[in-house]
Structure formats: C-alpha cells, structure tokens
C-alpha cells in the first residue's frame, strides 16, 4: 500500500519531467499515452488493494522527516516562482499572497509547537472515490489532449507550440491532485494546494496573449488568497491542537464541538470557496476559458474545482449546524442560482459550460454546508455525475470547435445531423446534466429534501428557482442541437484518441445512470457510514429503481411505437411560413420575390440576465456576506 500510494503521487511528477525534456512530438505522445494508462492501472491497483483489505480506512506514512524537508523546499520554490512571474508581469502585489503564507509556515515549522508524529496519508472511501475520478477522468483527458493539442496548434499557428510545457503541467496537476486527496496532514495538503493553484495559473496563461495573462493572474490571486486563509487556518490548528496536523483530528474536534476548532474550519472552508470558484471568486473560472480545452476540462471537471469540493465534503460534519455551515450553504445556494441565471444570457458554448460548472459546484458547496448525511449523499452523487458529464461536454466542445471553427451555441443548429458523433455525445452529456431520469436531477431532489429537513429556507428557495433556470439554458441549447437543418454536414476531423475518450465518457455516463441504485447502496452509504457512523439512503430504494425503469421506459417504449408507426406512411410537408416557403424550410420569398434565408435564434435576454448586469451586484452581496459571517465566526470564538 505504501508503495502504490507513493507511486501514484510521484509517478506523474516524474512523467512531467520527461514531458518537458522530450521535444519529439511522436515520442512524447507515446509516453503520455502509456503513462495515462499506467496511472489508471495504478488507481485500479490501489482500489483493489484497499478493497481486498476490507474497505477500511488506512493510515500510512508516520515517519516522514525527510519528506517534510522536501515539502518545505518545494514551497519555497513555488514562492520564488510566483514572485518572479508576478514581477515579470508587473503585478508585484500578487507575490505577497505567496510570500506571506510561505514564510508563516516556515516559521511554524522552525519555531512552532513540535509536531506530533502522526500518519500523513489517510485512505478511506472518499479518498478512493476522488482517486478514481482523478485517475480515470484525468487519464482520459490526457489521452484526449494528445489529439486535441495537435489540432489546436494546427489551427492556431499564432501561438507558440509549447506542447512539452503543456503536458508537463497536465501531469504535475494529476500528481498534485493525487497527493491532495490522499494526504491527511494539513501541511502536505497546503503544498499540493499551492501546486494546483500554480499549475492552473500557468495553464491559463499558456497562449501568452494579454487576455490570457490577465485571466491567469486573476486565477492566481484568488487561489492564493484561499491559500493564505488555508495557511492561517493551519497555524491556528497547530497551536490549538498542540502540533497535531491531521485533518481528521481537526474534523473530529470540530464535530465534538470544540470551540477552538471553529476558526481553522472556517478558514479552510473559506479557502475551499476560492478553489471551488464560488461567487465572489467565480470570475477566475470564467477567465480560465481562454486556455486550450483539455486544461479547462481538467480544471473544471476532474480536478481543480473538485479539490475545493473535496475539502468541504471532508469538513461537512464539522460544519453541520454551525455558523460556518450557514455561511457556506448560503454562498453555495446563492452561487447555484446566480450562476445559472447568468448562464441564460451566454451564447458562447464554453462560457455556458463554465457558468453551469460554477452553478453546480454551488449546489455541492451548499450540500456540504448543510453537512448532514442526506445532503452529503446528494453532494457526492452530484460530484460524480458532474465530473463525468462536464468532462464529456468540455472535451466535446473542443472537438466541435476544431471541426466547426466556432463554439457558439447559435452555430450548432442541427449538430446532431451535421456532426453526428459529436452531436450525439453532446446530447448525452447535456441530458446527464439535468433531464429527469438522470443522475443530476436525483441529487438535486435529495438536496432539496434535505434542505427542507434542515429548515434552511434560503437554500430551498435558491434550489427551487435555480432548477428552473438550469432547465432553461440547457433545453435551449438542446433545441439547437436537434433542430433540423438543410446545411451541409461538417467534415468530422476529430482524432481517434479524442473519440476513444469521448466514447468512454458517454458510456460511463449511461452506465452510471443505470447502476445508480447499486452504487448508492454499496459505495456511497458505506462512505457516509464511515464519516457519520450511520447513514441511510435519502431516497427509498424503490424510488431509485423506478427511476431506472423510467429511463428505460421513456426511451424504449416510444421507440418501439415509433418503429411501428413508421409503417404508417407519413406525408412530409413543408414547414409553415405563411405559404412563402421556398421549398427548403430554410428560406422564404421576400416582398421583392427574392429568396431570403431564414435563421432562428434563441433567446438570451442579455439586458435581463446578462453577466454585465448581474455579476457585480452578486459579487458585492456575497463579499459583504462573507466578510460579515467570517467576522462573526471568528469574533464569536475570540470574544
């Protein structure tokens, strides 16, 4: 077990070194493939070992003095990197956000209370679940990225081809994520946290355009701000828990109602908000869209943002019923609603995806904030479904953009007919995001129910209204995908490896919908039992099985009827355009007797729901709320 854990964390770092050194594309691509597969296998081995040990929580690495030194060095390295970068781009103040926490932590290790010897790695259901998500989806994204980046640099010759750099970052990212979810020591967590922040910063700035640099620095300072909060939280913990740096220990004392645990929990939760791109900090995720698609997929679905969610899920029992919990659930609920409203006004496909990510993360954050077993059940399923469907959608968006040279939703009219493979994948992904029998909706439902049980009025209202807006912008998009068209099919230039990744994602999505009840019974319930001591499914199993039946019935029955009805001869008519249809359904005869093309566009309500109009007020509201709540939480303890 020791071996496989250290392999999972170190191997991606080694591969990233290789990626940087090898400048021959073919060789590097081959190594990337092999390493991605090896990572997936390693995760498989980890799961197997852990499961054959009876699925109990395992603690490892108690003696780690030399590793701790490496970690300290790494933190200094990151600090220097950030400082250099921020001075280079004339944003020196950003470096402060890195220098301060690093020095504070160094001081802590030099002069602080002597640290208790305790295990640094903790493997339980939650960590294993995260490992599976990161390994599987992250690995697939790497496979996809090989093909995608080839096409990307083919089309965007204006950008310097730095694929070696790109793949290096991807693998560092994966390694850091594994380290992050497997660590129990908050000092370790802090390092991996900083690494992911830096990686996202470098990935967003990959194209080196002004916009990219601007956005990358926004991402950097927001994440580093979270890092500061995390560092302060860690120092508090070190003093009050007398050198015990275990996250589990902190959570346990938080659950037992220890007063001093409140501050570190609140600060770490605050840090998680920045990582999970919640409302006052949502902008960095929007800016991250300028990066090449695999990195946005990686940032959005599999890793980065899920890191914040993961921490909040861990802290959930400690936050349940506290002021911190209230703060987190309000911010989450508000973000869920506000981001889904703003998504309505977007026509850039990737931006819609980004807003929907923020919005769904908001729901997960809210679930964690309420912190009961029921909401956590909902949150975990949301996370699983969201990881797969978003990763599918982002990769698909990239592939569509490569083929169609546009990612505007308005240009996707009849995509199912023009680019059949990608169109259908996109349809599946979107259906998974919100349509009734699929997973996301079940989670939303149980979240709603749990929120009512908790008496959390604001959250209930946010979820009710947010579901409606979510339905609106997705259906709008799907309408475009399926509307019939007479325009020419587009040449599908998607690479084979991209298709492999997409197919696996789509298959996973469908499989997950079908085995949903089994997964709940055999994995998520034990996971919750591990955290809370006891847990029951929020929704009765009967309901879950009915849902599975519904999925099958809704699609199979009409299909059979349709096949039968196809025998009845149907007369195809022209669409109704007051009798002036030219005969193609796509054009009409105008007043001068000339042919005019007919275009149909969706509603976006830019003046009503636009980002420009809503973003600033939302940020102000959440910032003020966040400050007030933090002051109350911390003041309540210190007073």
């Amino acid at each position: 077990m020791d071996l496989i854990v250290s392999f999972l964390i170190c191997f991606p770092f080694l591969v990233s070194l290789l990626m940087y050194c090898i400048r021959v594309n073919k060789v590097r691509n081959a190594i990337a493939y092999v390493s991605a597969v090896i990572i997936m296998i390693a995760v498989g081995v980890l799961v197997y070992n852990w499961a054959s040990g009876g699925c109990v929580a395992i603690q490892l690495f108690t003696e780690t003095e030399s590793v701790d030194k490496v970690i300290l060095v790494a933190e200094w390295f990151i600090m220097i990197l950030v400082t250099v970068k921020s001075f280079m781009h004339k944003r020196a103040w950003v470096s402060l956000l890195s220098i301060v926490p690093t020095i504070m932590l160094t001081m802590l290790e030099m002069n602080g209370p002597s640290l208790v010897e305790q295990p640094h790695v903790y493997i339980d259901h939650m960590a294993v679940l995260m490992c599976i998500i990161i390994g599987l989806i992250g690995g697939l994204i790497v496979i996809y990225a090989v093909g995608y980046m080839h096409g990307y640099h083919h089309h965007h010759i204006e950008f310097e081809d730095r694929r070696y750099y790109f793949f290096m970052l991807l693998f560092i990212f994966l390694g850091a994520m594994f380290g992050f979810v497997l660590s129990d020591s908050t000092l370790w967590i802090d390092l991996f946290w900083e690494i992911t922040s830096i990686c996202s910063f470098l990935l967003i700035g990959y194209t080196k355009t002004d916009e990219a640099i601007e956005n990358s620095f926004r991402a950097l300072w927001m994440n580093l701000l979270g890092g500061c909060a995390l560092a302060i939280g860690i120092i508090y913990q070190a003093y009050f828990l007398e050198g015990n740096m275990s996250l589990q220990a902190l959570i346990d004392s938080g659950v037992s109602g220890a007063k001093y645990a409140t501050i570190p929990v609140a600060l770490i939760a605050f840090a998680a908000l920045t990582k999970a791109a919640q409302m006052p900090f949502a902008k960095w995720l929007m800016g991250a869209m300028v990066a090449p698609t695999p990195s946005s997929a990686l940032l959005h679905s599999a890793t980065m943002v899920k890191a914040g969610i993961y921490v909040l899920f861990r802290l959930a029992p400690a936050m349940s019923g506290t002021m911190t919990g209230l703060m987190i659930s309000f911010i989450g609920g508000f973000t869920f609603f506000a981001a889904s409203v703003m998504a309505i006004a977007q026509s850039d496909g990737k931006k819609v995806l980004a807003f929907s990510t923020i919005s769904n993360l908001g729901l997960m954050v809210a679930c964690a904030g309420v912190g009961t077993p029921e909401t956590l059940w909902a949150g975990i399923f949301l996370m699983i479904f969201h990881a797969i469907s978003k990763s599918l959608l982002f990769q698909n968006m990239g592939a569509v953009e490569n083929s169609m040279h546009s990612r505007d939703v308005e240009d996707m009219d009849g995509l199912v007919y023009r680019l059949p493979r990608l169109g259908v994948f996109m349809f599946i992904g979107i259906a998974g995001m919100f349509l009734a029998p699929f997973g996301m909706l079940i989670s939303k439902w149980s979240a709603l129910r749990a929120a009512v049980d908790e008496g959390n009025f604001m959250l209930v209202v946010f979820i009710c209204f947010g579901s409606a807006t979510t339905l609106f912008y997705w259906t709008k998009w799907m309408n475009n995908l399926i509307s019939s068209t007479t325009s020419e099919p587009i040449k599908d230039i998607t690479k084979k490896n991209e298709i492999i990744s997409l197919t696996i994602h789509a298959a996973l999505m469908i499989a997950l919908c079908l085995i949903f009840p089994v997964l709940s019974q055999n994995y998520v319930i034990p996971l919750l039992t591990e955290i809370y001591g006891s847990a029951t499914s929020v929704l009765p199993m009967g309901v879950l099985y009915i849902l599975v039946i519904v999925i099958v019935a809704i699609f199979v029955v009409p299909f059979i009827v349709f096949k039968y009805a196809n025998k009845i001869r149907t007369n195809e008519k022209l669409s109704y355009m007051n009798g002036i249809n030219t005969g193609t359904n796509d054009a009409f005869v105008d007043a001068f007797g000339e042919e005019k093309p007919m275009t149909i566009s969706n509603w976006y309500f830019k003046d009503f729901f636009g980002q420009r109009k809503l973003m600033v007020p939302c940020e102000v509201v959440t910032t003020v709320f966040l400050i007030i709540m933090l002051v109350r939480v911390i003041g309540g303890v210190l007073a």
Partner: protein
Amino acid sequence: MIDILIRVIIFLVAAPILGGLLDGLDRIISARMQGRIGPPLLQPFYDVSKLFQKQTIAVSKSQSLLIQMFFFTQIFTGCLFMAGFDIMLCFFILSTGATFLVFAGAVTHSPYSSMGASRELLQMLSYEPAILMTCLGFYLAAGTFKVEELVLSDYSLIVYLPGFFVAYVFSLTIKMRKSPFDLSTSHHPHQELVKGITTEIGSRNLAFYFITEWYENIFLLGVVALFIINKNPWSILAAVIVVLLICFLETLIDNTSARMKWDKMLTLTWIVTLVSAGTNLLVLMLIK
C-alpha cells in the same frame, strides 16, 4: 398491489374521458360568456377522432417520436400519481415530458413552432419554482412526499398550505395554457403566433397532443384535489367541487384577460411564488 393496478387502469381509461369532457365544458362556458351557444359537449372527442382519420403528416420524422415520448411520459406521470408514489417524482417526470414537447416544437426548425418552443421554455422557467415549492409544502405539512399517505392526513392540507395553493393555482393557469399566460400556444386559434408550438403538428400527432393534454390536466387537477382530500371520505366530494371551481376560475380568467408579455409573466409569477409560497414555507418551517 391489486388495488394500485386497479387505480392505474381506472386512470388510464377515465382520465382522457374526463379531460375531454372538461375541455368541452370549458368551450361551452367560454361561448356562453361571450354570448354564444358554443359547440356540443363532446366536441373535443369529435375533433380528436377526425384528426386520427386524416392523412398522417409531419414536417420532420422525429416529430412523431418526440410527441410519442411526450405522450408516454405524461401518462406515466399520471399513473405514478394514481399509484400513490412520490409527488416530487411525478413533477420531475412531468417536466421531462414537457421538455419533449419543447423538442418536438424545436426539431422542425420552423419559425412559428421554434418561437413557440422558446416561449414554452420560458413558461417552464416561470412555473417550475412554484411547482417544486408546492411539493415541498406537501412534504412539510404531512411529513411525506407519498401521495398515498398524503391523502390520509388528518386535516385537509390546504389548512397549512394556503400560500402554496395560491401559487399552484397561479402556475396552473400557465400550465393549462390559459390567457393571460398562453404565450406558447393557445386554445383560441388565429393569433400572432399561428398555433405556436403546435403549428407544425397536424392530424395524428395533434390528436396525440390533445389526448396528452387531457391526461396532463387531470393530473394537475388531481394535485389540486390533493390539497383538499383527507381521511374523511366526504372530503372527496369537497375536492371535486373545489376542482370544478378552479376550472371555472381558469375559464373566467381566460376570457377576461389579454395576453401578457414574457417579462411581465416571468416577474409576476416569480413574485407571486416568492411572496405567497415563500411566506407560507417560512411559516411552516418555523411552526413545524
């Protein structure tokens, strides 16, 4: 198990008949309000039977499939309701069905029906919060989502849920496509949007659409009855009376108001939902 089956079968048979009769009644009452005699009571059935006999037409083939899906999901919703399952589940599946209708409108890529589909979506955006909150209201008042347990409560649930009732009836006006909220399509022909979302739906498909609408209306009115019914058998009579009153109210509103603009509809519905259902929810949360 057997009694569930019987209830479902009764629903399958009786709902379209009742729905059609209510539709006919609505047309007669509308006509009387306008000083006309109006069509015979069975007119909706004549219409549907004629539509089935006409030549099958479609603008795009997938239209039939989507209408079929709409048809099955809405019937399935009603069956679940009758079988006493989760009310929330019913509404989720109902909105999936409504999504299929939107698809059926959009798939043709024709100006009127696409516009109708967009407006239908906008209507969903308006009424969805009210409907979700109504389900939660039931849960808070009776402690269960299950329809079979909701009907056995001690008091009529409307006692706890007056605000939710108002919000629900308000969104019912949208759901039943009554003016002033008949943006996407209306029962009154000849208007600026032609027949809105149903413009490209003709003959057989239109017949399916009508039958689906009857099933849907009966389900929606069933939820109105759910507010009234309690363990006292006489409450069923009261529920029937309330349902008929609501139907009359909808017809009255339909005939006395002009169509609203979309932004008015959205803000109005959301405000009503927030004020009446929201206040009610808050009060319930405090006293429970």
